[in-house]
């Protein structure tokens, strides 16, 4: 991609940022919340995509990092009186460290073994959050003092989303990203070519862990009450994977589109058909999986609507 195209993409991101910056002024509190959670899913899907799309290691346990971030925020704010924005960095740091500790052994596993190990890891963190009473208050959950938080959490999520998009974009267009793709396509060959696969996989894993943790922290502060069941909810991982796959995993724009579309579709189906939304949601997934196995982006490329090199 040329310098010019990069600049144009940067300008587009800037435009998006400006638009979203002004959004809460013109919208109701509900639509602001809706936009906030949409951006949260953009962050989650994009992060999942770094390890599972770029690098090819499908994770079924990414909700663990989100939950760790949520708990870091709640514990530090409620029990230790930290300011909530600071806790986001702390949560990201903890999640990053956990990713190193878990990733080092687990990234040696491939395919379904890795997916299942991650599923186990997410369940493990949920159990720890339930059992480690002294730290997490166990099943009682943690309740924040009531505060006005609609705009502050919105802007925090906006900043986080912009950072995540920028990082994903930079990764995709760097040597690092190309190495990750090489690992995805053929790990043995990549290693034979002199790529330090362990290091790059670990780095990708850590990158994919820190943003969900920050997102978890923001959502905890938005909802003001967390419990293990709610923040280590396996469906959140599934949403990350589905959104990436719907948009087109392994690209930067794919997970963004997937998250926006799927979250919007979900919202519209239950607004209009509250009882049938699960069926509608299921049908939607089946249609996408059947007719667009490479996501919307892949579908568009196959039909020549989008030039292949442009979609990173």
């Amino acid at each position: 991609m040329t310098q010019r195209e990069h600049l144009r993409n940067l300008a587009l991101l800037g435009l998006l940022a400006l638009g979203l910056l002004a959004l809460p002024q013109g919208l109701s509190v509900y639509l602001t919340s809706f936009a906030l959670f949409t951006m949260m899913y953009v962050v989650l899907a994009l992060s999942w995509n770094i390890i599972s799309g770029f690098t090819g290691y499908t994770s079924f346990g990414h909700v663990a990092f989100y939950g760790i971030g949520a708990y870091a925020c709640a514990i530090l704010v409620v029990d230790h009186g930290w300011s909530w924005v600071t806790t986001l960095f702390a949560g990201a740091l903890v999640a990053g460290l956990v990713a190193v500790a878990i990733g080092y052994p687990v990234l040696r596993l491939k395919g379904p073994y890795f997916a299942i190990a991650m599923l186990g890891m997410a369940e493990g963190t949920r159990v720890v959050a339930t059992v480690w009473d002294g730290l997490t208050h166990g099943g009682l959950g943690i309740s924040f003092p009531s505060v006005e938080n609609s705009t502050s959490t919105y802007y925090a999520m906006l900043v986080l989303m912009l950072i995540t998009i920028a990082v994903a974009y930079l990764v995709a267009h760097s040597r690092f990203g190309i190495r990750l793709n090489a690992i995805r396509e053929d790990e043995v060959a990549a290693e034979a070519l002199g790529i330090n696969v362990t290091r790059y996989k670990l780095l990708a894993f850590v990158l994919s862990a820190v943003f969900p943790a920050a997102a978890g922290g923001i959502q905890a502060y938005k909802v003001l009450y967390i419990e293990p069941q709610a923040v280590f909810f396996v469906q959140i991982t599934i949403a990350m994977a589905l959104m990436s796959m719907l948009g087109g995993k392994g690209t930067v724009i794919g997970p963004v589109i997937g998250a926006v579309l799927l979250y919007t579709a979900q919202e519209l189906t239950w607004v209009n058909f509250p009882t049938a939304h699960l069926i509608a949601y299921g049908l939607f997934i089946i249609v996408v999986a059947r007719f667009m196995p490479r996501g919307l982006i892949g579908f568009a490329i196959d039909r020549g609507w989008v030039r292949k090199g442009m979609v990173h």
Partner: protein
Amino acid sequence: MTQCVLRAVAALMALLVLVPAGRAEDRPKNEVLVGGAISQTGRFAEPAGRQVNAIKMWVDQVNSRGGLLGRKINLVLLDDKSDTQTAVKLYEKLITEDKVDVLLAPYSSAITEAVANINERYKMPFVAYGAASSPIWEKGRKYIFSIVAIAEDYQKGAVHLAKQIGVKRIAIIGEDSLFPRQSGIGAKQWADKLGLQVVLQENYPQKQTDFTALLQKIKAAGAEAIMSNSYFADAAAQVRQMRELNLYFKLFSGTVGPGLPQFAEQLGDSAEYILGFSQWEPLPDILKHPGMKEFIAEYEKRYGEKPNYHAGGTYGALQVTEAALKQAGSFDSQKLRDALASIETTTVFGRYKVNDKGMNDHEGLTFQILKGERRVVFPEQWAETKAKLPIPEWSKR
């Protein structure tokens, strides 16, 4: 890339147009919008479904007798998917976008805890028929009122009965989540008050099915009775395994499980003599609350089953809301809040009069399963029969 970003922006714009932007303006003058979000899908769908039944029935009845303060109810019930995050978002929608006049409560203590912050922020009150966890009312909130007995009192009757039969040492066990832990705390408080010794208090993780080690530990600790703060599957497993291991206790009390019809059906003879707790039972001749007979008959006609306490409590909360609206004389939420805080009334569910924290002092019922039927044994004023305790030994049954 350009196209893709444009498409994403277009999708966002389309959404803003598609989602209806506030219905307050085009609402007919003779209507009142009553709304809430409740778990119609997900893990709470079963109990919350009974509450939805009661809500719909109440709305139809109110509309057929001329509406609320002369205005016809337009009901909006959204689905929070048993998820706190969705619930918070939906209550923001109901208040800021749909601009409901009267707010209805969600189901479960956890979701109510999260939604209560929205009530405070927008100064919209409701009677929380789906929450029994007292910390919700310990934070100085002004717009949330309780109607059901708090979790801490679920074992009140069982501890009293244990005391009556001369039990000295009890064990308190329970699932590790908000509600069972609160009822465990309450059981401990009642035991301390009545001078019973708690020799073991332990929480086990959700979905645990093997209690053999825990039961043996309880026996080894010298407990004579078990207070189990449990749901259905765990309580059933505990009773089955007690029998398999031939461990005898003078009294066993579950919180939620024994109240469900399938408990006695599935456990058969093993369920006999087990104590359980109910917020309310459809027993008009015993409870003698006004309007109970009509409520039970109408509910049974509509839904083909007798109302359980979820339905009874919800209907009671709506009767309280209706009475408070009458007292307030308008849909002004501040006036409604003040009325809910001060009103004293009796519903099909019992008396409603809240203290300065907004908590109603509802008295629940302790029952015992006798010949497969739930029979109220505590408090004495409502007892159908005397409790048959201590439980006979397994070998003598």
